[in-house]
């Protein structure tokens, strides 16, 4: 067969299309980047330093599992000092440094998430998780690229109030700090209490730390509340408020939300101030790390932590904060992997669509059963009670979804 000029050009064009086009379409970076801002200095440096190793572990684990459709993933972390503008600057720098290889970001505070949300537009948009449970973020209409790695504070309040109702409670007090996350679920909690037929007998706002506690204890006593939900505190008021109430002889049962559920803190306070936290309960979105029997993913973490963090406290126990970060990273990883395996580009819009569509996902034990993303959050949790003798939080309810 002789080949004339036209046939030669046609064959060459066809060969180029056949060989070259897939390379263009499937051009993949050598690695995908997930950026992160952590409070490694500043007021929350302790938490940031404790959470940071989770990124190292997640990177190794995810890459051992094949990365994102065969492409390895790398976490690039930077310090924010817990200042929202710094997180924004870190994010912009990550965009400038890694371009389209940057496929996701983890922010370190509600403030940072809110500051960055309006900036996530066009080529600057990436999916973004964080340490925040702020209810405002659980709204795909206004925050399509951001997600909450568990139930929002409003959902956590719903879980607590439903649990109180189930126990036969009739009156409840809300004591909360004068902070963004202290105030977050209060109005919603009031509405839920009314819907459930619970009477809110006291709403008391305090400073986040060093509050004028005797006044609040007196008011709590006057209100006669059977239950009191504390919101917006990390550790500040347990000894003064719960300890003060116990000294006062109040029978009020205290409840808390995620940031008031860490064993390390509860153990330390018990050691320093006595076992007054007996009976303290709160909502925890995730299974605790020691509860590994029905949690294959936790067993994997335990194996990795044993190897990677030998000789450190993380070898045996991952804190609630670390689990929250791991959950956020697992959600990001699943979103990336599912999008890539579906043959779609890892653009923010494609990822946001996959994220919003996560349903019946078996997380390997983080939650009681398969979960779905509803409004970019996971409205599931369980109520746990602290036992000062064993130093463990033990479940007092089944997994509750709202």
């Amino acid at each position: 067969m002789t080949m004339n000029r036209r046939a030669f050009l046609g064959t060459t064009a066809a060969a180029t299309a056949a060989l070259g086009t897939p390379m263009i379409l499937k051009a993949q970076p050598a690695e995908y980047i997930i950026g992160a801002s952590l409070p490694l200095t500043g007021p929350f440096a302790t938490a940031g330093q404790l959470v940071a190793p989770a990124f190292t572990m997640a990177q190794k684990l995810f890459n051992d599992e094949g990365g994102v459709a065969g492409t390895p993933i790398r976490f690039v972390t930077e310090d924010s000092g817990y200042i929202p503008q710094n997180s924004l600057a870190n994010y912009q720098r990550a965009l400038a440094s890694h371009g389209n290889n940057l496929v996701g970001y983890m922010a370190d505070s509600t403030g940072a998430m809110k500051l960055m949300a309006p900036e996530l537009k066009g080529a600057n948009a990436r999916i973004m998780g964080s340490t925040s449970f702020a209810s405002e973020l659980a709204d795909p209409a206004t925050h399509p690229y951001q997600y909450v790695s568990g139930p929002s504070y409003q959902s956590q309040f719903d879980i607590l109030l439903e649990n109180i109702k189930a126990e036969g409670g009739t009156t409840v007090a809300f004591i909360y700090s004068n902070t963004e996350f202290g105030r977050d679920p209060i109005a919603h909690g009031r509405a839920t209490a009314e819907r459930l037929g619970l009477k809110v007998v006291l709403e008391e706002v305090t400073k986040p730390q060093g509050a004028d506690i005797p006044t609040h204890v007196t008011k709590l006593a006057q209100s006669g509340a059977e239950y009191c939900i504390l919101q917006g505190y990390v550790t500040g008021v347990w000894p003064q408020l719960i300890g003060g109430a116990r000294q006062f002889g109040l029978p009020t049962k205290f409840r808390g939300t995620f940031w008031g559920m860490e064993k390390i803190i509860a153990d330390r306070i018990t050691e320093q101030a006595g076992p007054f936290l007996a009976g303290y309960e709160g909502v925890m979105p995730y299974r605790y790390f020691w509860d590994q029997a029905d949690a294959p993913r936790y067993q994997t973490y335990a194996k990795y932590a044993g190897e990677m963090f030998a000789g450190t406290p993380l070898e045996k126990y991952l804190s609630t904060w670390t689990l929250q970060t791991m959950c956020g990273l697992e959600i990001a990883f699943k979103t990336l992997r599912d999008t890539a395996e579906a043959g779609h580009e890892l653009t923010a819009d494609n990822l946001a669509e996959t994220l919003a569509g996560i349903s019946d996902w078996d997380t390997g034990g983080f939650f009681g059963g398969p979960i779905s993303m509803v409004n970019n959050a996971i409205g599931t949790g369980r109520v746990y009670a602290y036992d000062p003798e064993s130093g463990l939080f033990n479940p007092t309810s089944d997994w509750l979804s709202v």
Partner: protein
Amino acid sequence: MINGNLKSSYGSDERIVNNGYKQAFVYGSFLCLAAFALFANDYMILIACQVGILLVAVVGINILTGYTGLISLGHGAFVAIGAYAVTILHNAMDGIVPDALTALIAIPVAVTITALIGIIVGLPSLRVKGLYLAVATLAASFIVIFIVENETFAGYTGGVVGINTPVPNLLGWELDTKREMFIFISVSAVLALLAGQNLFRTRVGRAFIAIRDRDYSAEILGISLLRYKLMSFALSAAYCGMAGALFAYFYARILPEQFELELSLELIAAVIVGGMGRTLGPLFGVILIVLVPELIKVTASVVTNGDTASTRIIAPLQEIIFGLLLIFFLLKEPLGINHIVDRLIRAANRWPFARG
């Protein structure tokens, strides 16, 4: 002093940019700014805008502290007032005033409101000075943040959760990108510097300097301390109000935590390190306060390649390095970085003759 400047007329003595090196520095800076707007990436634009916004506020602090000798630890509050005032005014005018005019009305009104509040905060300066005045002004910071966060005003300020800010539109030019905001901010910052420089060529500015050098001597000379101290407070607050307005238009959301005491301390630190009572002192101070930590961070991220384990160790070191740098500059040149630059320009001007 041998300075290498030939002045053959009163006109040349009056010139701000009075030798070739200064001209090269100033006009070169303008060219760099123009090139920056065209070629810098989004991250660089973000940092440059942070420098510009803070610069406007520090020029204001320089008027009060550097030229009038009054110390304030409450000027972060004025930035907050400017930011919230411009947002509230802009939102209030939405739909009533044409978009193209809203920002042009909101900004001057917000600046005026801030200046008036500055006068109130400045009242203690008539009775106390030095550290006592610093403590008295500190209250402004707490009061303003308290009001912003208070539930009563949350409908306007957003309360503790903050508030989204509008996009400014200047006579039809919608500044909806950071790059466009950079142009607006840099023009504002240059104008702020020029206005600051020219203020001290007027009677008012010289009265400020007289008060700084010895207040009772100034009063004996006929300078009203009441009038000029309050005027100094009003002017410096107005600058901070302008910085706040730029802040609000630049960021898509403002939060109360962005204006707390740390901001006031940052403003004071910038003016001290840069050079108090010098026109370009605020510029050098802000560059040090904003850019150096970023440069350290960029260097650290190159070294660690973003590795978490290394970043955990390096992050606190960055803070220490920045602190040591501040101490170094203060020890090396207590009059500020401006003085170091002066010496360099003077040496260049005299070259190849005597240096120093």
